[in-house]
């Protein structure tokens, strides 16, 4: 396998590690300020501030001027969707058990599998293989078992 792909898989798992760690801090913060909406907004604002400083120090600001509007719109959509996603998850966590929310959020894998080919251009479409589908079924099965186990 190409090293670029290996990096892609490692970065994917690191994404999951970050997403599993952050709720611990958010939960502690909610003890003092009981607002999941503000928790999301403050977290995003601070992260943006840190990254903006890094981005400007790297003198990458010029890159933004060369951006194609179509790609910019896709990236803005990704940012808004990501923000609304975490917001919806945090709101769900206020009224529903963590195990149920985590389990239902994992449906994103299936939704991506369905929506991906519809939204992506033909040239960008991923190859859906039997092994990919088998892997997704195993991951979803594992998630259901973890949720069941944590409810015992």
């Amino acid at each position, binding site marked *: 396998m190409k090293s670029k792909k290996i990096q892609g898989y490692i970065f994917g798992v690191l994404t999951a590690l970050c997403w599993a760690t952050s709720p611990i801090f958010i939960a502690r913060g909610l003890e003092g300020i009981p607002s999941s909406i503000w928790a999301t907004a403050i977290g995003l604002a601070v992260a943006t501030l840190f990254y903006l400083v890094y981005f400007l120090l790297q003198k990458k600001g010029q890159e933004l001027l060369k951006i194609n509007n179509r790609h910019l719109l*896709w990236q803005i959509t*990704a940012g808004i969707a990501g923000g609304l996603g975490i917001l919806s998850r945090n709101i769900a966590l206020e009224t529903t058990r963590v195990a149920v929310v985590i389990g239902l959020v994992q*449906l994103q894998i299936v939704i991506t599998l369905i929506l991906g080919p519809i939204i992506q251009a033909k040239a960008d479409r991923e190859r859906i293989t039997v092994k990919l589908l088998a892997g997704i079924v195993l991951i979803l099965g*594992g998630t259901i078992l973890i949720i069941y186990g944590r409810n015992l």
Partner: protein
Amino acid sequence: MGILFSFLAALFFSLSHITVRKGVVKLGVSSGTIIMLLAGTISTLIIALIQEGVEILTPLNLTSILFFAMGGVIHFLGGWGFQNASASRIGPTRLSAMTGSTPVFATILAFISLNQVVNIYILAGIFLIVVGILVITLGEKNEE
């Protein structure tokens, strides 16, 4: 309501994974991440101001804000940065599958920090998720 918002979260995360691939491939990870962060910040700040106002933040609880900040840096700076880097290399479906390992890390962290008991179902679930990830990654190697 909780169920509905969980479904909405799944839908939004999925949309984010797909659209990020369409944008970040041409923009690059650095520019893509800063645009995503700015768009996410502006949209959630507007929602927070309309929905809850600033009264809920007073008196200012700096400890809570610090925890929100730390959570935000880990989730958005780390998570979205890695998400962009991953999506540009392997695509949204495989990225979504990799993020399926989130419950494994959540369980390990709960075990370490909260001493939560790990039973046979949880161990079996972790095993299935790890096997699922191996099937996807090693399966690709064999198909190349």
